[in-house]
């Protein structure tokens, strides 16, 4: 239960929603990738467009090579998604104000009906987590039946990215409000965190010190990727702990 007096740091300093990803227990099973695509109506681009590097994922599992060829060491699996930066490089470059910062939820929003498809935001994103709808990709029957009605189906020429499952945030807030209470910690979670069989992904309020996600995030050996760029990311990674 989040009470206002427990929230010491303001939302501007810490963000509001955050995530902790433990790379040591991530097995790279791609369940989060599949769950995200199902939840958020992320399309399948097919073999040809994928070959052009146009595959669309809101979360992906990254692995890197370390060392020279015969002695190659694989790094741990690294789920990479929109870091919901507090100071996001994607936002100031949009000429149409289609990617804006949500003051209410401290998230980076992508407003699809404003987007004109310049792709500047994706080029300016240091995490390379934005994907662009290069076509209206075909969804043969009965695939349209599994659309999530709470999420817009994007059309051609529109940029999209992880929203931290804002539809679930709104649903939980709406339910809590109808019952006259605040949203409890762990009451809901994102699709990727829900699907993760190893519980490597934890989602919650980072501005509430009592929540599981902020207790994990303040353990000490967490890393925020490319923090030196001043992006103030809201996703903390653990590795080698």
């Amino acid at each position, binding site marked *: 239960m989040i009470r206002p007096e427990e929230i010491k740091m303001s939302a501007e300093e810490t963000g509001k929603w955050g995530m902790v990803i433990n790379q040591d227990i991530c097995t790279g099973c791609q369940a989060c990738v599949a769950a995200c695509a199902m939840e958020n109506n992320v399309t399948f681009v097919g073999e040809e467009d994928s070959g052009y590097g146009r595959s669309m994922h809101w979360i992906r599992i990254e692995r890197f090579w370390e060392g020279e060829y015969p002695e190659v060491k694989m790094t741990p699996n690294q789920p990479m998604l929109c870091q919901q930066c507090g100071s996001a490089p994607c936002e100031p470059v949009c000429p149409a104000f289609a990617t*804006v910062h*949500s*003051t*209410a*939820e401290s*998230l980076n*929003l992508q*407003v*699809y*009906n404003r987007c004109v498809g310049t792709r500047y935001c994706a080029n300016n994103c240091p995490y390379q987590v934005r994907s662009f709808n290069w076509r209206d990709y075909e969804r043969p029957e009965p695939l349209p039946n599994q659309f999530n009605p*709470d*999420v*817009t*189906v994007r059309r051609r020429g529109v940029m999209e990215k992880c*929203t931290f499952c*804002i*539809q679930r945030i*709104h649903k939980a807030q*709406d339910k809590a*409000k*109808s019952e006259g209470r605040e949203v409890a910690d762990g009451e809901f979670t994102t699709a990727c965190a829900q699907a993760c069989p190893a519980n490597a992904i934890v989602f919650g309020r980072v501005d509430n010190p009592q929540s599981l996600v902020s207790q994990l995030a303040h353990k000490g050996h967490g890393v925020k990727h490319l923090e030196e760029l001043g992006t103030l990311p809201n996703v903390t990674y653990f590795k080698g702990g």
Partner: protein
Amino acid sequence: MIKSFFNWLKQPLGLIAVGIVFLALFSAAAYGLYTTQQAPDQPIQFPHKTHVAFGIQCLYCHPGASKGPAAGIPSQAKCWACHNQIVKTRDSALLAPLKDAVLNGESLEWVPVAIVPDFVQFNHRAHVAAGKNCEECHGDMTQQLVAQNPQVMNMGWCLNCHIENAGEDQAKLIKLTDCGTCHY
């Protein structure tokens, strides 16, 4: 060739032709716009006026409005439960599509009237909980026959009410004018 065509357009006859073409295009555009603002055809000419006059509450047929995002349209079983018991309506020709649908187990395909685009996530519950009455957005149903949309439901219309509703409360204003409140 092209030059002689433009010279012909400068004559009085040519100017009249230009005027006729302009008027035709303008009226076609105006008609196109007009058709988008018309209530769609419904499978049954459902008179809201009559039903409201019998004292039936909005929420009896649209119970979703107080519970969730969609207000919902009643199933034909709900319609038929009442109409089946009234001799006048049971055999009425106007209600034949309803009777056929019930007997054949088919669905009546009502056409939504008050709609928002796919990129807008609207929730009835929040608006009802905020004290909005149905008629503030959907018009006075005691006077309507086939459902019509009383106003253009665009973002300016939504935002006007949101800003007005927030009043002096800054936190509420931020929440109610946030892009992510409706678009995701």
